[in-house]
């Protein structure tokens, strides 16, 4: 499996377009950090306006942990697009280039080829998340220092001791890896049906946008289907920032996402093994 995976990784990381995602995340994080560095205190005053009349807030609220949380909330909405750019290209891109037919004529099973391609997509996804974690957490902490993390939720204010925060970020990035792998699996499946990568990328994003809207709209008719939408569970990482952590919904969401990955990959293998390669 390793020779195939190394070939797929070599192909992914030899393409300039792969690094667009890394550059985009780098640019957004740097811009947010710069904005907070220049104007962070005004932002905090505005944000805390509603509770400062009730509570006496002291200490360094604007710290690296809070900035990282804000960056995560902002970026995790857009990262699926960057994941789909590569995962949606895995099979459709090969079909479009005409190299798929050459790959299939090699003495390698279609299942192994597909698993290697999916594994390469997962490596790319993890790489992107590690890059995001490095920039948003490490650089934020270096610039703004550490402190207690205060999170404003719709019905409560969560205050986490600074010694109790770092593990939550590692857990949140771990959860995000599962969520983003689900996106990769969806883009990967759609990639098998297409002969150019635009289709699967646009389709993946369309599914995510529609499902996210359905997940967030608080209309009774949609509430019944929300538990069955993977996008409902993709924001489960926020559960790590509850005090105490509500483990049950977090683990349940993680398991549902893993089931989605297994199902999507299973369907991909089933379809690909029966597909006539006409490209």
């Amino acid at each position: 499996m390793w020779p195939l995976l190394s070939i797929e990784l070599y192909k992914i990381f030899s393409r300039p377009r792969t690094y667009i995602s890394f550059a985009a995340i780098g640019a957004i994080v740097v811009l947010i950090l710069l904005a907070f560095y220049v104007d962070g205190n005004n932002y905090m005053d505005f944000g805390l306006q509603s509770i400062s009349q009730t509570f006496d807030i002291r200490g360094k609220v604007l710290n690296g942990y809070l900035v990282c949380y804000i960056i995560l909330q902002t970026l995790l909405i857009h990262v699926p697009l960057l994941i789909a750019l590569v995962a949606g290209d895995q099979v459709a891109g090969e079909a479009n280039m005409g190299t798929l037919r050459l790959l299939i004529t090699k003495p390698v099973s279609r299942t192994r080829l597909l698993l290697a391609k999916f594994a390469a997509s997962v490596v790319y996804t993890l790489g992107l998340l590690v890059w995001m974690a490095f920039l948003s957490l490490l650089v934020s902490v270096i610039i703004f220092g550490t402190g207690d993390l205060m999170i404003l939720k719709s019905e409560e204010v969560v205050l986490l001791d600074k010694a109790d925060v770092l593990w939550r970020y590692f857990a949140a990035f771990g959860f995000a890896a599962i969520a983003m792998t689900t996106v990769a699996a969806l883009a990967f499946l759609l990639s098998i049906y297409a002969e150019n990568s635009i289709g699967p990328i646009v389709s993946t994003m369309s599914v995510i946008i529609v499902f996210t809207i359905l997940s967030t709209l608080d209309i009774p008719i949609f509430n019944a289907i929300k538990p069955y939408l993977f996008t409902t569970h993709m924001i489960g990482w926020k559960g790590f920032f509850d005090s105490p952590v509500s483990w049950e919904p977090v683990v349940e969401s993680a398991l549902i996402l893993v089931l989605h990955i297994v199902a999507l990959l299973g369907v991909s293998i089933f379809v690909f093994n029966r597909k006539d390669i006409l490209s």
Partner: protein
Amino acid sequence: MSERIAPAELSDPAAVINPTNFTGMTPLIEVKNLVKRFDDLVAVDDLSFTVYPADVYGFLGQNGAGKSTSIRMLLSLIKPTSGEISLFGMDLQKHRFEILRRVGAVIERPDLYKYLSAIDNLSIFARMSGIRPGRKQLMEQLEMVGLAERADGKVRTYSQGMKQRLGIAVALVHDPDLVILDEPTNGLDPQGIADMRNLILRLSREMGKTVLVSSHLLSEIEQVATRMIIIDKGRKMVEGGVAELFKPSNSRIHIKVEQPGRAWQLLQQSEWKPFMEQGPDGELIVIMSPDKVPALASELVQQGVGLLSIRSANSLEEYFLSLTSGKQHVASFKH
């Protein structure tokens, strides 16, 4: 394998390999009653053919005749609706890996990773074929197709001819016994076509490969193949040794004269009668060896019939032309 291919002296391929003497020989490719349907379209219809070791087997048919679909089924890209395919004496469905290890192919266009160099492409497909050659061996392969100097150049900067040669190098990198080339001269300039022809002959004669080459041009197949098949609408129309199919006795001589009616009557009373046909626009057609044309012309002139033109066409060529122009029900191949 590492020796660079120089232009070959073209001669009758059949002179090198006897295409008809296959008695007792195990077929390298054996296709029986192959059918492929795409919904209502029957792309390949009950096709059977046999390729023997050391054949250069021409797969001829007009565009859309079912050549590429058949070749894709041989390479397990497309699953047959029904029928049997065996290569090297093994069933393709059951022994796919063993078979594909011994096959190299260029299917339609030589599409490769444009953002990678030639040597990277070669290395990737070598590893996919289960071998891991060093740079030296890869360079030898590129040397063979005349691309060593551009080994590190990105494929996107290559000309069509260079891509085609790189495609051949990729097909040969794991030293296969069978090489399948689907329309290898498509998009090539005349020099590129000649180079490809030489390469096919070298593959067969010097490297001992069996080659299956498809084309929609009869002349291409005629110049390189030892055996051939013509397919149309997915069905086999003709199969056999090229030397036999093109033998001179099968030539059709088209004669235009000033008085076609009189000429027809005269020839009906002569020894040529059994070989006569009436062509369109008063043309006379005689099926015979071209070396008898002077005698026939002399006889007509002596009888006072003015000759306008005499044209020789191989009956196979005419037959193929009739297929490509959709008149296959009018023409019949006499072999």
